[in-house]
Structure formats: C-alpha cells, structure tokens
C-alpha cells in the first residue's frame, strides 16, 4: 500500500509539470541550492509540480489591488516579559 500511495502521489503532482515553464524549473533548482536544500532527482519533478501550482495560485494574489495601507495580519507588540 505505501508504495502505491507514493507512486500515485508523485504522478498527481507531476501532472502539473507540462504546464510549467523552463524558467520556473530553473528557479526551483537555483533557489533550493541557495537555501541549502538538496532535492533528490526523483523528487525534483514533483517539487517543481507543487511549486508550479503555488506559483499559479499566487499570481492572482500578487495581482490583487491591495491598498498599501493594509498591514500584515500578525501584529508585533513589544514586550519585556518572557513568552
């Protein structure tokens, strides 16, 4: 069972890859190297597929006309006591 699950999960994400641009694939490899993260060759197409999906959903989020005055949801409070 676990082997079957792994195989099917890989295929589902790799289905995203044909829609992926070459530059995005390069970004994944270069960014991983910069972060010091090693991606095994068998994982690389899956990671690219997942990242391509993130990039796809992030696109309209980044394009949304969000007013500059809107601050981030987490707010920082200076404090002297231990958390």
């Amino acid at each position, binding site marked *: *069972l*676990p082997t*079957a*699950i*792994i195989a*099917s*999960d*890989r*295929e*589902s*994400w790799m*289905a995203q890859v044909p829609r992926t641009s070459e530059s995005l694939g390069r*970004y*994944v490899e270069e*960014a*991983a190297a910069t*972060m*010091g*993260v*090693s*991606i*095994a060759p068998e*994982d690389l197409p*899956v*990671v690219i*597929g*997942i*990242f391509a*999906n*993130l990039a796809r*959903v*992030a696109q*309209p*989020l*980044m394009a*949304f006309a*969000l*007013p500059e005055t*809107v*601050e*981030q*949801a*987490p707010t920082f409070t200076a404090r002297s006591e231990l*958390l």
Partner: protein
Amino acid sequence: MPGALAIAADVRGGRQSAQESVRDALQRIDARNDAINAFTAITADRAMAAAKAVDAICQTGDDPGPLAGVPFAVKNLFDVRGITTIAGSRIDASNAPASRDATLVARLEAAGAILVGALNMDEYAFGFSTQNTHYGATRNPHDPTRIAGGSSGGSAAAVAAGFVPISLGSDTNGSIRVPAALCGVFGMKPTFGRLSRSGTRLFAASFDHVGPFARSVADVAAIYDALQGPDATDPVCVDRPIEPVTPLLGQGLTGLRVAIADGYFTGGGHAEVFAATEQAAAALGVTNRVELPAPELARAAAMVITASEGAELHLADLKTRSADFDPMTRPLFLSGTLVPAAWYARAQRFRTWYCNELARLFKDVDVILAPATPYPAFPIGQRMTEVDGQELPAAGHLGVFTQPLSFAGLPVLAAPIAGVRPLPLGLQIIAAPWRENLVLRVAAAAEAAGVVGVTPLEF
C-alpha cells in the same frame, strides 16, 4: 456506542463504572483497530489507572467531573506524558517521551474523561488524507477501501468507528473538518486562539487550531466547554473568560440570520455535494445567499503561508535528513522552502483585508452554511479526480471549501448531513469570530430537525 454525555451520566449516576467504560473502549479498539488503523498508541495502563481514580471519587460522593469515565483519544501531535509525540513522523519518533500532557489533554482529564490512546495523522499535519507511509493509511469506517480524510484522520475514524465517543484533532486548513465530513461525524474548529495549542506539535502557526470530534452536537458542546479557558503558555490563546455554550443549545433558529454560501462554494466539486448542501439549507428554511469576498485568493494565501511556515519549521531536517520524511509530504515541505518572501508578505497583508471584508459581511448575517468537502471519500491510493472536466490532485483539492474559512480564523463546525448514503458528506456551519455559540445553536436546531446527524455503523 453511547455518546459522551450518556456515558458520563451513567458513571456519575452509579449505573456504570469508569473502569467498565474504559474496558469496553479498549475491547472495541482491540477488536477493530487493525481494520481501520486509527490508533498509533494505546495507553491502556494509564487509562485503567485513571478510571480507577474516577471510580474512587464517585464512591466518596465527590463530583468526578462532567465527562466522568468518558474515553477519549488524541491526534498524535498532542503531548501525552510518557509517550513520544510523533506527529505522524519517523523523525520525531526518536525524541524523548513527553514530560507532561498537552493543556487540552489535561483539561479533558480534569473534567473526568480518560485518555485511551493517540491517533494517526498525515506527517506533521501536511495533508488531507491520512495516507501515512510510515504508519499506514487510516481507513474510512464507512468503507475501509477509502480514505478517512486528514490530517486528523485517526481522530475522525476513531469516533466514526465507535472506538471512542470523543477525540481531539488539529485544523490548519481543514484538518478537523475534512475528516469529520468524510467519516460522517461532527468536528469543530473554534475561533483561532480560542483553545490552547500548548503541548501540540505546530505546523503553520498562523493557522493552527485545535478542536474536538464527537457524535452529537451536545457532546461537541460539552467537550468544547471543558476545553475553554486562557493559557499563558500558548501565545495565541486569548485571555477570554470561559463562555459556556451548552446552556444555549436549545435556543433554536428564531431571530438568527442564516444564509447559504454562494458563488465559489457552489462549484469546484461533485454535483452530489451541492445538492446535499442545498437540501440541508432548504430543510432549515434557509433561502438567503451570501458571497464571501475573494475566497479563491484566501485559499491561495493560505497555501502560501502554510507552505512557508511549515517548511521553515522543518528546514533543518529538510537540509540534513530529508530521506526520513514521508515521501507523501517531503515534496510539499521542499517546495515550501522556495516561496519568495513577497508572496508570504502579500498573503499576510491580504489576510487583514479579507478579515475586514468578512467583518462587514457578518454585519448582515449571523451564520453561513457551506459544503465541507468537494466530494466524498475517494479510494486509498487514488491520485486524481475530475471536477468540472478538469483533472485535479484528489487529496490536495479536498480543502477547497475549508481553507478560506480557517484563513480568517472563523469558528466552524463540520456536521454530517443526515441521510446521505453510502458515503457521508459534511455541512460547514460558520459564524463570526468568537460566536461559537451561534454555530452550535444552529447545529443543535439542525440536529433536532433531522437535517444533520451521525449515521450509525453496524459491525
């Protein structure tokens, strides 16, 4: 099996001992867990000792607590004193055993409930299906060839299978509501910050919630009441007084403005889901419709924040021992390490905008109804599913209707829609932040009207 309140009433009334209650639960688990794979640890000795203590209190005439003798179990990311908190991982399995119980475990035990074990989940809670490579997939009690949902799959399956009447899970993007819906039980994600997460393994701290599973609205309310209260050891747990909901359950729908979620929540899934949701709403006399503000962007922002925070939390292990991660989750975490900072910052700013828009929406409506999942449980190992003519990752798409709600920290109950066969479907009952009382009030009315409720399973 009887519900939590029925067990507690029997134990408190001397009609059953806590030891009998716990022994019954352990026998059910022993007989059927191999078929469902809900439990990863069973705390039999601790449970029998605790049951003996509850019985001793009963014999002295003292109050053993509102949940006296009620067996419960927790997702294995909750600390349980004396056993290792594995959070579905092999990596954490080599950690030392927890030195104390998570706050919510302690609170349930203070109410007289008795812990009988820890439950399976997706590794580090990153998933919607509990197809865990290390510990095996949890199977859906309604059809063991199908997933239980996730990431709190063991918590939902244990209640659906009747192993325990109540359990605890966590919900970052839908991990209580998805498995509750697919297993046909109630699962509640209270307002972000309402319940203490202290002593739980976090996943994406911006969204991590904890909450209960049960087989009736009254049981959900009873557990929720026992779990409430501030906790200085969880930085997001609010300093609010306990606001009991149990006394308010019978208030009915009169005076409440209930609406069904329109637009985004009426597509992107299988037709049977929307038909069941509409029928449930119609049976409650709900005709008003509301549209949430840009829920597709809320989901996108939730995905970006989850991937970033989850990956950062596990970055050291991803760099040095990535082979020890579950192959189901490793690529998800790895991709999260690559998210540009601008996406994350934008997602957190969008969250402010979205919450403001929702606050406006909740001026005109008290409670919103929406489907919990886009389809019922699919076969274990299935990779894709078709939605509106498009092939989508079957597990990844399960959170399409839950993510835009947890993104805003709203209180939501996933309730099993009555009469849906052969596989359960869930209805999300949603309110403004801190209005769990309205969620459970509508749920109680729906349950009394036969619109939601657990379908008993015969074994």
